């Protein structure tokens, strides 16, 4: 996956070095305003949703796909490095026992698809989780199904090879509370860039 990114980067670099610095699309336009909160559930889970930071990072930079991508000090490269160091960049939440992706969730995933398209050096690790109810092994399978459902959306953008799926089942909860509040926070897929 890294090699592919590097190849693309080199290709773009070569292309632009040939003298053609075209009109790069303003990335900010592809992304919705940064304060939007998106939930994969119909109920109000605003306090549990991690806000997408995409708008803020890219807002400072206008042209991602140019020669500055190979310069480690370019704002773009710095942005990529920052994304890779952020740990869990975004979290999608799921309904009890379910692994369906809602329309709102799909839109959120698309933002990440765009991000990955614009930064070929980025790869994504999707970590699927479940709440503690039910058996551990079934929850391991459920966690994977959740992450795979997200990957299926990314597949539509040809990002399969850059997306890795891991399931932790109920083994790595965010919340240790044995109640609905806690369980809600654990039924999730974490997006981690690397």
């Amino acid at each position: 996956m890294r090699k592919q990114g590097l190849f693309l980067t080199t290709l773009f670099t070569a292309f632009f070095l040939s003298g053609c610095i075209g009109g790069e699309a303003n990335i900010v336009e592809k992304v919705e305003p940064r304060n939007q909160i998106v939930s994969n559930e119909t109920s109000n889970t605003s306090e549990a949703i991690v806000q997408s930071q995409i708008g803020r990072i890219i807002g400072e930079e206008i042209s991602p796909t140019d020669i500055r991508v190979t310069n480690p000090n370019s704002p773009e490269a710095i942005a990529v490095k920052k994304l890779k160091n952020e740990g869990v960049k975004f979290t999608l939440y799921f309904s009890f026992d379910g692994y369906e992706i809602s329309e709102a969730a799909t839109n959120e995933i698309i933002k990440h698809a765009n991000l990955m398209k614009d930064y070929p050096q980025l790869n994504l690790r999707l970590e699927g989780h479940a709440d503690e109810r039910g058996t551990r092994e079934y929850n391991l399978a459920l966690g994977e199904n959740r992450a795979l459902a997200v990957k299926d959306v990314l597949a539509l953008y040809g990002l399969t090879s850059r997306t890795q799926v891991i399931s932790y089942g109920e083994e790595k909860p965010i919340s240790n509370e044995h109640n609905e509040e806690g369980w809600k926070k654990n039924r999730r897929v974490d997006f981690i860039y690397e």
Partner: protein
Amino acid sequence: MILSRLTLLILLFSNFSWGVLEVSVIKNEDNALPVKILPFQIIGSVQGGDLIEKIITNNLNRTGHFSAKVDPSFDKNVINFSQLRSEKFEALVMANLEKKSEKIFDIQLKLIDPYSEKTIMNKKYAVHDSGIRRTAHFLSDQIYESILGIRGSFDTRLAYVTVSKNSHGKKEYRLEISDSDAQNPKTIITSSDPILSPVWSPDQNKIAYVSFRNLRSEVFVQYPFVRRKTLKLPYFDGIASSPSWHPDGNKLAITLSKDGNKDIYLYDMEKKSLERITKNPSIDTEASFSSDGKKMVFTSNRSGQVQIYIMDLESKKISRATYEGNYNAKAVFSPDGKSLALVHRLGKDYRVGILDIQTRDLTILTENELDESPFFAPSGDMIIYSTNKKNRGILSVVSIIGRQTFELSSVNGEVREPSWSNYSQ
């Protein structure tokens, strides 16, 4: 009273190792059978010989079927049967231990029925000196069967996972084994990453389990009595989990998602080959074999709900086993193959239940909210499972008619995922 005696016993005889679980016996039934145990007579120096009758007493009491007491003052030479009868004793247990050589000693075990005044058991055994605990467990099984007519589960082992915080506040997982009474614990693996689903092989030589040490679910096999022997199953894309031993002790059923969905495969440890057993777009997991190796039970959501299915391994025919409720999972066969212990969702609670395969009758055995991981004792009359007490994970043992017998808890953490071995050899 029994609790304090047990606690004292644990304090006296435990080696204060990290993993000692606390045993809490649930109050005995009113119709527990009183049994009088006389201190074993020891000829020659037998290391730990005085422990034997204490271990046997605790074993019998822990099952809830007995109210056993050691009586040092009872005259064994002139047995007062009428006194025994007036105190309602069901049995009198006596034994001699004689050191025969450096490492071997003879045991003579005698059981007397106070009502018929007859000796109902009189047997001799030769044992190795270093196996005092095993000897006590073995004798407990003999006594149990002699009085009740069914096998005990004392000469067996447990495997389980404990979770605690280390000195830096970081989570620490341990795979541990112990005697059936939670004594003599040994840590097999320590990890900062989750360990789950430990299962004893039928011959007790191996334990298969799932570990996240490589930051993904992978199946490992440990040889707990052979130093440093750990086998890792080959790399599989996706999930590798839910190991379960075939009765032949060589093949492992595992859940893999490498071919696109969660299905059950059979891994041959010797040939290192893989055979796909289920092929269905749904989640198929939590496989377990009947003791005759002819059937495999597993969890599947192929119907749209999480339910239990049984596959006839010869014909490969699959039939659904559970029809009550909308969530049934993690089933294991009883040793006689006629029932399944499983996790059943009742309302919002997850309980352990027992299903009669033939009649489809489901009996709920437990009362908590997050009960899971049931496992039969090899005698088939008890089930060990995971539950919560005061927000901490503990193990509990319930009889197949729903009577709680004893609990095992970790002093400094949680314990979960029990596996009960076959009889030790």
